[in-house]
């Protein structure tokens, strides 16, 4: 803020003397924050160190032995969680700020080493045998617990990713998994179910006011998984694409309502782009059939015109939404 500008505004009688003084005092005591610089260096250091240690261990695996490494990882993990339990702020349904600047990193370290530990056990010793589901289920539980108990958005994202992995593995029969032949149908329906679950989790955390700030992360994952699954369904099920297109339109409507309610420009953009992909796919498909039938180039022109006019239409729509949400904003 430029104190001279506020002095001028004060002279014009637009702001009080008090306000101009406040701006001046604030500018005089403004601090130069090195927060993100220091965090970036710390993060970079952690990446370099862990990468270097990884290579060291890899080169010396014959002399170190797997058990020693496993014990080391377990110790790091246990130590991190011990620290977190000792220093954690009391649990609350609301957002809890971290007690100090290192807490979040140490919790992240604990969670990551836990995943590594389970993965290592399974890879080297096939600890869970062929129960691959269990090998992802356990870390998922731990991650969700940590995210809620210690209030960490990053770990919540990890947990949701793990949930998706677990759901994907759990629904895929072992024989198919072994043959590396992924069943599209099954994965699409799993994706839809998972998306619905995540959106519901988001809505619940909002309604029940239980970790309300997790809502965005849940809904964000949910939106993307739902739309990607829906689009996959649209592309794969060529014969009943009308049905899948209607499903996508339904999704778009639902999230449109949500976006307007939350005044979220981000969700408006996401649903517009996904729905536009779906609509363009359907239009191009229909035109393609027409080309096959008629054999002349008219549908190609129609296709080009479609993109031009739909683009103009969507621009108008986005501008209208921008105005609508902004007008809504000023009411608050």
């Amino acid at each position: 803020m430029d104190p001279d500008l506020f002095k001028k505004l004060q002279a014009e009688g637009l702001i009080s003397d008090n306000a101009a003084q406040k701006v001046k005092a604030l500018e005089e005591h403004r601090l130069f924050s090195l927060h993100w610089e220091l965090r970036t260096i710390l993060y970079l250091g952690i990446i370099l160190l862990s990468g270097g240690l990884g290579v060291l261990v890899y080169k010396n695996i014959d002399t170190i032995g797997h058990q020693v490494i496993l014990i080391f990882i377990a110790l790091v993990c246990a130590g991190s969680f011990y620290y977190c339990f000792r220093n954690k702020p009391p649990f609350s349904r609301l957002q809890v700020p971290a007690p100090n600047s290192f807490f979040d990193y140490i919790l992240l370290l604990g969670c990551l080493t836990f995943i590594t530990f389970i993965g290592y056990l399974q890879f080297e010793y096939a600890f869970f045998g062929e129960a691959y589901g269990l090998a992802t289920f356990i870390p998922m539980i731990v991650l969700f617990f940590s995210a809620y108990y210690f209030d960490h958005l990053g770990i919540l994202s990890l947990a949701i990713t793990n949930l998706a992995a677990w759901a994907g593995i759990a629904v895929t029969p072992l024989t198919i998994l072994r043959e590396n032949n992924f069943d599209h149908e099954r994965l699409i329906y799993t994706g839809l179910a998972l998306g619905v679950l995540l959106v519901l989790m988001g809505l619940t955390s909002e309604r029940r006011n239980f970790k309300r700030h997790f809502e965005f992360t849940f809904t964000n994952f949910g939106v993307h998984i739902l739309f990607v699954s829906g689009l996959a369904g649209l592309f794969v099920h060529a014969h009943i694409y009308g049905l899948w297109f209607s499903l996508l339109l339904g999704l778009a409507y639902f999230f449109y309502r949500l976006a307007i309610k939350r005044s979220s420009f981000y969700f408006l953009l996401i649903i517009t782009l996904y729905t536009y992909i779906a609509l363009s796919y359907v239009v191009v498909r229909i035109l393609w059939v027409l080309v096959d039938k008629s054999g002349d180039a008219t549908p190609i022109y129609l296709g080009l015109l479609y993109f031009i006019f739909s683009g103009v239409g969507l621009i108008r729509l986005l501008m209208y939404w921008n105005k609508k949400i902004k007008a809504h904003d000023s009411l608050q």
Partner: protein
Amino acid sequence: MIAYNSTSLDNRIIEEQTAEALATHCITKEEHTQIGAAYPVPFYTPNIFIRIGLFILTVIIAVFTLGLLALLTSAGSNSFGVLFIFSGLVCYGILEAMVHSKRHFQSGVDDALLLMAGILVLSGISIAVDHLPMLTLFLLIFTVALYSTLRFADQLMALLAYAALLAILFKAMTSLGGLANTLLPFLIMAVSIAVYFLAAALSSNSKLRHYHVCTTVVIKAACLLSFYLAGNYFVVREAGVALLNLPLQPGQSLPMGWLFWILTIATPLFYIFQGIRKKDVIFLWVGLGLIAAAVLTIRNYYHVLPMEWALVLGGALLIAVSYVLIKHLRVPRHGFTGEVTDDRHLLQSLPIESLVIAESFTTPPTPSNDFRFGGGSGGGGGAGGQY
């Protein structure tokens, strides 16, 4: 020269500043609305996500319109160039119209149109003219980018103009050959310094205030970067071998190699020092980034340590440094802090503020009505919905 209304641009700055003052509880909501009425900003600048959407859609429209035109005119490859130039000029015309009548300003539509106009005109020329010399192409890019920067104060175009300027220098000097090749790094360094000081001088000229971001952020960072790259041992040596056919064997050192080694290592340190001394974010960030470049350059020629040990030691060093500094700067020192300076709470978080304010007021300040106790994160309400 600038396409936008000068008063509107000034009002936009006022709007930004008063919004900050409102967020830090320096002024009241009523004052903010009052200022908004006195200094209106008539620009159409939508939310950033809407801007992204408008950008994508504008590019789609432009590309498919071009496709339609190409089909309709059944253009052969000869007339493609003309078609591209024509479409580029049409894009530019629409852009001017949008800026003038619809008052678009950083709306996504204007960003996309400017970019499309530049790409179409330049690629049209290089298609239409056979064997266009590189130097001419760079000159054209420079002209177009410089014009766009001056007309629309566009940051991307400013960066492009600077890059094109360096490319022109490079091309012109290398075509001279001989001594010019040897002097090339020094010339680029000299130009970087010259442009840096020119930008600094221009940024303090109040007539050019609308280009403030271009000169103080984009050009400044680009100058710092190009100065370093022109003096970096790796860049000078490998570019010399690859582009100028410098007769160097692998492992053979560059003439005056010591000078470039000094520049490689000292420049980032100087940038960081300068960044700390002047509290300058641009110097600091460029310097920090270039430390990595310096380390990689050294490792490329001298394998002092095996890779993994270098990683372990480097990582441990970085962690130690940041740990110590974070601990040290928990309390603000010398005007620095390791914590986030959330301006929304700055006024409340610094006890010194209240002292200063209390001292300078004859009557004790009464808390404004919208001041909420315990609402440490109360100001964040607006951000919640704007993802």
